């Protein structure tokens, strides 16, 4: 059966013509991946229009999982869709071999923080110039809602009746490992995502952006504590549009400012999570150190 042709506005047509392909995507209704793809292509478009970067220099690298499908096959540009957890390692080879490339890794919390956690901290330590966008949907979405290293303590997943482990704080982890640009947002903050991706793409060093995202298919099941406070009408709406309800939960309270950006915080289960730009510093990159060896 052929998909009906969507009726597109001028803006949608512009992005589809220049930056997107192979649509419609395979993401669940209400998934945060579409928001992140949208934010990415808008950031890229603004930088290309301002002649800050060139379209052909952008390389999207991803591993395995839902987040890996953001660039591949949807971004119109060079993409490298690799093995589970190894996107940063593949990206390291491509970036070092051709330092002109603007390398953007799309990874998830399972892909980037569990199986690929070692590559993540070592890339941060080396300060290799690349942008890592880690989509944290708090669980393994593609395989069906299993526990991840970011899953909140004591929630029910498809592999634990009560998830028995404390989650990583990924921005703390990557910052401690030596990343020179670190930020965290949720999918609610689209404009912040665009501004942060723009900044990260121009940052001379390792830039890490965690985006906490809604998984309406699986994480909605275990993040049930706000369901119990809902009226039966609201609960019915939650069941029908879990993505929209989760997105509301990803809107935070403003707490102050830091590094020229406002800070927010959201409550995730019983833990407060801070949002904002946490680190922006300049230190020599791996490429600079390697080229110094040429003498």
């Amino acid at each position, binding site marked *: 059966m052929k998909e009906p042709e969507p009726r597109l506005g001028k803006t949608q047509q512009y992005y589809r013509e220049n930056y997107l392909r192979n649509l419609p995507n395979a993401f669940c209704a209400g998934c945060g991946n579409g928001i992140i793809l949208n934010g990415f292509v808008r950031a890229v478009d603004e930088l290309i229009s301002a002649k800050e970067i060139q379209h052909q220099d952008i390389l999207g690298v991803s591993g395995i999982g839902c987040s890996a499908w953001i660039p591949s096959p949807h971004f119109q540009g060079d993409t490298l869709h690799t093995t589970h957890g190894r996107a940063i390692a593949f990206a390291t*080879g491509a970036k070092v071999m051709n330092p002109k490339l603007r390398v953007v890794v799309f990874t998830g919390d399972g892909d980037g923080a569990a199986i690929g956690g070692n590559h993540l901290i070592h890339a941060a330590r080396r300060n290799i110039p690349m942008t890592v966008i880690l989509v944290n949907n708090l669980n393994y979405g593609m395989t069906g809602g299993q526990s991840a290293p970011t899953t909140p303590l004591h929630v029910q997943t498809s592999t634990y009746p009560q998830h028995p482990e404390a989650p990583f704080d990924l921005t703390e982890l990557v910052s401690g490992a030596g990343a020179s640009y670190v930020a965290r947002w949720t999918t609610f903050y689209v404009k912040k995502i665009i501004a942060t991706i723009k900044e990260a793409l121009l940052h001379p060093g390792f830039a890490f952006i965690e985006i906490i995202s809604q998984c309406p298919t699986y994480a909605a099941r275990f993040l049930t504590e706000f369901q119990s406070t809902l009226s039966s009408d609201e609960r019915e709406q939650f069941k029908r549009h879990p993505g929209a309800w989760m997105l509301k939960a990803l809107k935070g309270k403003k707490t102050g400012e830091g590094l020229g950006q406002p800070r927010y915080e959201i409550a995730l289960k019983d833990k407060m999570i801070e949002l904002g730009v946490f680190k922006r510093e300049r230190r020599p990159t791996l490429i600079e150190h390697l080229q110094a060896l040429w003498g």
Partner: protein
Amino acid sequence: MKAGLHFVDGGTACAEGAIFAGCQFFAGYPITPATSIVEWMAERLPQVKGYYLQLEDEIASMAAIIGASWAGGKAMTATSGPGFSLMQENLGYAYLTETPVVLVDAQRSGPSTGQATMPGQQDIMQARFGTHGDITPIAFSPWSVQEMFDFTIQAFNYAERFRTPTLVMTDGEVSYMREPLTIPKRSEVSIINRERLTKKHSNPEEIFLRYEMPKFGDGHKLLVTGSAHRPTGVRDYTPRFHRATIEWLFEKNRQAGLALREEGLDLETAHLESAKTVVLSFGASARPAYQAVQTAQKQGHDVGFIRLKTLWPLPESHLLELTKSVQRIFVVEMNMGMMVNEIARVACHAEVHCVPKVAGEVHHSNEILDQIMESGAA
């Protein structure tokens, strides 16, 4: 190193061969007996404005050379058994995405940590079947320091020509021993370099199922994926596309086998004319095997010799032609019997015996000769 005569170890010869072939990128993780390859690459690559990276593990090393290859560079890694195991998943990725890279395995005696650093030939079936799925390896087996140099160049040439990963399955013995090495002049060896994919090529949007290798940054908007894909790179699991991909990989491997034979890189022989008894070996164990054959010849026994230069694709038809009238084949290898099963399958008309050794040391020629004599074959 300049053209002319040198006295170096096998690992250094391997690294010099890589530089000679135009290698620009090396990623690796320390492991013996691959150490001298890695250390010489670390020394040499910056001198030719190339990049050497020591990464966090062998998984990352294999991944990085694939990334570097798609970024346009000739890339290589070197390791030993435990690292070779860790590289298998991404090696499979390189087969499916038709990525030219070179992997050198200086085999040591396993399984597991085993006799760490002592030589073995126990990874040859891992080279053939190690990663999951149907794979199509090209694996060279050098027996001397000179061949460490020569076969590393050929590994790069075959990787570029057939757009595939290639393996140099050496071992701790050949990797660490010192021998004379003659480095040829540039003009004496042909080097295959990558042709840039441009609009003049047919179907420029089709990046797979073709010999030309595109690269990132050229505006091709490449979709490279380890999932089943169409020739354009779009992920597609329908049977006809994946079948076409796998059949193409097998056809390329068959073509590579023909080219290897044509260039005399599949095997070599000695004293084969009328021999009814033949000793077959490869790599380090071929050295005492050849010595045993020479001793037998001196003693008046008609014993022939076959040495495999390439393990995979196995030169099956060439072997069959050569051994038509041979009655007994002794396969000398530093494992409990791996290649012997392949030879028994190909030369099914002959009695095929195994001369195994798993001590972490090379056979003594007398051990081989004794087994031939005891069997009453000569």
